[in-house]
């Protein structure tokens, strides 16, 4: 039998693309069971305190209102792992926007009107929402997110730093950011015969099912969570969120199916944010640029509801030669909404600071920023001493420099002008860890010749369905068209969420295993296919549970050309190139889409995204997409992604590393470094909006425009 053309790596089109483009793909809020009721949540209007009175009776008299759920009457919930889901259980208001009630009505309009009319009395307490590195309540947590130690010390940082030929001591500040996926969080819930079925906009219906079972005291078997299509999440749907819990409460209370779809304005308070981070970075190096001392110390915020510690100093444990190193996370609990996962949590923030500091070190040593990074390539992972399974940062830097035309760069800042514009180029490295979770899957061949793959993966717009079909087709040695993939329901074989850039590796491994076994059984088959076809189940618990003998990370290099308008302070990215080394790329089309999507989000992080804590009220000021600025097409002139194929046998049978997040990592630093090169001004506080750049230009009058 001749082998069909390679399907793995081919730019296969997203399987649901036509459905989505035609509006036929239905999302969580677009399922309306017969008799459905609607819930509209009521956010707390104080920054801290407790609820003292609720004007429930008046609202119950309003047209169509069926129930007003509050801490006084809402179903009692079991203790969740995630305390942000402990909704309507007591009178505490831990931050502004925390839900104090859910109005349930026969229509969305009536629910919203009821919610708007509900009078809530509060006892207000003094609140504190200001993050400073000198905050008296700053503490060192036991660990940072991802199970990373909060503090790591190697060698003698202070001694080596004091003895270094060249020292950089610098601080950076990143504001809070919000994920704001195109589809706001929404859920529909339905109780029937003691069973609960929900349709939820989530990155993982397995965790949703588990949380609901825990909260409502159900056997996991009696809960089904479906996330068929998801309009983006960027981490904010990586954990179960209030809508699905509230919908289930409303449905249980009213005895009818219930739907809760959040208005975008409520998102900033209840579905997480990238925590603001304050970075202190110190680099000591020899005159040759070789780093002898590295300290990256981060202060961040969490809420009073739960501890969440953005692991922003972790990449400094991975990136460069650093015989003497200190990496520290400290945190302060404030009366703010609870921070959570946002694309490349830890890496995006941490690499902005570290890669900006590397640019400062390049300037201080007089070395080219690419060369400086090449000189600091470690032989093994600095923190663990483990060998890298593969590390092609140097190749990414070299290829990128070639393709971008880096060699022609005049290293002097502020010298390239085009009328009122100052032009500059910048580079930064990127990294993201290889994460893999255990998964199960089944593969079935029926008499219709269709190979049915079942796995509870989630496609959040990335192309998961498509790439899983490719993995199956490759393992089965069958044309892609003969593969059918069923995903997005907790009734399917158990699988982890779409998060941590781990989905394809985790689900794909199980799919690959099931298909490989199926292919072998088909090859070994004596006689016809049994009447019921052949089914193989696979579980990767054993393979994925082994302690890896290697440090496994994807790497990349981002090059950027930026222009700074000296009249207005406006910064624009003229062109950007990312070169990534992420194992084997399994679908060229969807991979490119992930890379350039991440890079575009990085432009947003660098230039315009930011959530402003309103200290008086305790909420974030930007609550809609008119005020929370994400890049629009006109901001993105040329973004190109390339990759270096790696043959890494230490990953998974497909040889892939995750690609969903690395695109954003390093991008913000590349832009900021280009702005420094353009202007000579080092701005250390993102985003680089015109107010900040204009001030910097004013302070360096030699660089300002013809307007002066």
């Amino acid at each position, binding site marked *: 039998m001749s082998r069909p053309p390679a399907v793995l790596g081919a730019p296969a089109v997203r399987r649901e693309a036509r459905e989505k483009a035609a509006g036929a793909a239905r999302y969580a809020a677009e399922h309306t069971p017969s008799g459905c009721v609607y819930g509209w949540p009521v*956010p707390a*209007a104080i920054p801290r305190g407790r609820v003292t009175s609720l004007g429930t009776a008046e609202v119950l008299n309003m047209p169509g209102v069926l129930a007003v759920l509050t801490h006084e009457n809402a179903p009692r919930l079991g203790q969740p792992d995630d305390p942000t889901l402990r909704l309507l259980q007591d009178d505490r208001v831990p931050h502004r926007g925390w839900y104090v009630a859910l109005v349930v009505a026969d229509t969305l*309009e009536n629910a*919203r*009107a009821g919610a*708007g009319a509900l009078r809530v009395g509060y006892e207000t307490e003094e609140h504190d929402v200001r993050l400073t590195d000198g905050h008296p309540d700053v503490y060192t947590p036991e660990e940072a997110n991802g199970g990373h130690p909060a503090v790591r010390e190697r060698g003698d940082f202070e001694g080596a730093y004091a003895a270094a030929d060249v020292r950089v001591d610098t601080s950076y500040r990143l504001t809070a950011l919000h994920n704001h996926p195109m589809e706001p969080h929404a859920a529909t819930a339905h109780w029937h015969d003691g069973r609960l079925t929900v349709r939820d906009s989530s990155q993982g219906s397995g965790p949703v099912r588990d949380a609901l079972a825990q909260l409502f005291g159900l056997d996991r078997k009696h809960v089904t969570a479906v996330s068929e299509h998801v309009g983006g999440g960027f981490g904010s749907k990586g954990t179960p969120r209030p809508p699905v819990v509230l919908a289930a409460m409303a449905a249980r209370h009213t005895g009818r199916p219930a739907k809760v779809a959040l208005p975008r*304005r409520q998102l900033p308070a209840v579905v997480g944010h990238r925590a603001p981070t304050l970075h202190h970075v110190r680099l000591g190096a020899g005159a040759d640029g070789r780093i002898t001392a590295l300290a990256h110390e981060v202060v961040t915020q969490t809420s009073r509801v739960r501890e969440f510690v953005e692991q922003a100093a972790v990449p400094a444990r991975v990136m460069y030669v650093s015989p003497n190193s200190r990496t520290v996370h400290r945190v302060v609990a404030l009366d703010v909404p609870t921070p959570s996962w946002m694309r490349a949590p830890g890496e995006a923030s941490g690499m902005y600071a570290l890669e900006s500091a590397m640019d400062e070190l390049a300037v201080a040593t007089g070395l080219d920023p690419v060369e400086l990074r090449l000189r600091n390539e470690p032989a093994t992972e600095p923190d663990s001493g483990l060998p890298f399974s593969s590390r092609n940062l140097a190749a990414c830097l070299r290829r990128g420099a070639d393709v971008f035309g880096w060699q022609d760069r005049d290293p002097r800042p502020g010298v390239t002008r085009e009328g*009122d514009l100052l032009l500059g180029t910048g580079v930064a490295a990127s990294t993201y860890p290889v994460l893999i979770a255990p998964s199960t899957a089944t593969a079935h061949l029926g008499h219709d010749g269709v190979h049915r793959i079942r796995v509870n993966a989630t496609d959040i717009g990335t192309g998961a369905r498509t790439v899983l079909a490719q993995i199956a087709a490759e393992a089965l040695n069958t044309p892609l068209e003969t593969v059918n993939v069923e995903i997005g329901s907790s009734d399917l074989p158990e699988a982890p969420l779409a998060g941590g850039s781990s989905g394809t590796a985790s689900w794909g491994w199980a799919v690959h295993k099931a298909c490989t076994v199926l292919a072998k059984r088909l090859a070994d088959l004596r006689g016809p296919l049994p009447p019921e076809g052949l089914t193989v189940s696979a579980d990767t618990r054993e393979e994925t549970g082994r302690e890896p003998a290697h440090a496994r990370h994807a790497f990349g290099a981002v090059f950027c050309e930026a222009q700074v308008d*000296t*009249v*207005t*302070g*406006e910064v*624009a990215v003229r062109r950007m190139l990312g070169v990534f080394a992420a194992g084997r790329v399994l679908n060229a089309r969807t991979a490119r889409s992930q890379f350039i999507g991440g890079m575009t989000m990085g432009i947003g992080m660098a*230039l*315009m995204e930011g959530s*402003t804590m*309103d*200290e*008086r*009220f305790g909420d974030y*000021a*930007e*609550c809609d997409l*008119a*005020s929370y*600025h994400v*890049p*629009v*097409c*006109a*901001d993105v002139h040329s973004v190109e992604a390339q990759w270096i194929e790696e043959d890494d046998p230490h990953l998974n049978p497909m040889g892939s590393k995750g690609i969903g997040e690395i695109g954003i990592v390093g991008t913000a630093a590349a832009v900021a470094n280009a702005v420094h090169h353009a202007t000579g001004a080092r701005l250390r506080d993102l985003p680089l*909006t*015109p*107010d900040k750049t*204009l*001030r910097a230009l*004013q302070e360096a009058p030699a660089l300002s*425009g*013809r*307007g*002066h």
Partner: protein
Amino acid sequence: MKPFAYVRPGTAAEAVAAYAAHTGAQYLAGGTNLVDLMKLGVATPDVLIDVSRLPLGTVEGVPGGGLLIGAAVRNSDLAAHPAVRTRYFALSQALLSGASGQLRNAATTGGNLLQRTRCTYFQDISKPCNKRAPGTGCPAREGVHRDLAVLGHSEHCVATHPSDMAVALAAFDATVHLHSTDGDRSLAVSDFHRLPGDRPQVDTELRPGELITGVELPPVPTGARSAYRKARDRASYAFALVSVAAVLSVEDGRVRHVGLAFGGLAHRPWRARRAEELLVGGPADREAFAAAAETELAAAEPLRDNAFKVLLARNLAVAVLAGLADGDDQGEEGS
């Protein structure tokens, strides 16, 4: 959103009569701002009088060389109109720099003038705001105000008017035509919007029930070129941090006519009369432009986080005026 009644009159006279006949009425045109405000609970009309389909949808030449723009003309149509593109170039630029293609297709000339501030406190009914709820206070003064006013604000309100179009209209000395049950009258665009003072809830000089029927552009001064430039946080779909509209004609190196207006600085498009007076008859060079802009902006009283707007406005004014004086291709010769 509060339930409301909907009325669609056929003529301007019917519209103003409908307004008089209903309490709690508001005119609805493109709805790009009003409907949002209704969803937010900021606007709570009992009756919407839809004026978007009144016979006010044409752009016509006026004897003597001006242009009469019907109040219902869509922003995208106005921006693309040949007379606007050739003679009132800054207006076309201003329109195209506003909002998004979809919004411009819906938004009207009259509605654009009447859009309300995007101050975050105004749009959030859980917070105080003197403009939305008089007497409750202005949290923006000490709060989040990077985007807000530096000129002409009061202790009661620091909001800015968000329109791009109105800034260009002010620089062109346009006039707003109004109709009411009491008859017709006109106001200069520059005088149409108010400063907040102690009544920030009132944005304009419109009388209750008065309807905008059109905007009239006078002939472009001989030899004048015009340009609009807007600084913002992203390249599209963002309100102006500061914008400038300028109409300039230069003869023998001297300023013969200048119209200059700023957006993003105040509760209304800021007509820079002092700068204009300083410039007319003087040299058309960068030094003069800078001195004039600085004189105009000397009255600025920035808040904690928006002092950059003063420098930005100055830079923009100088760049735009200098570009026009240098004959940059920013507009075609007026007739």
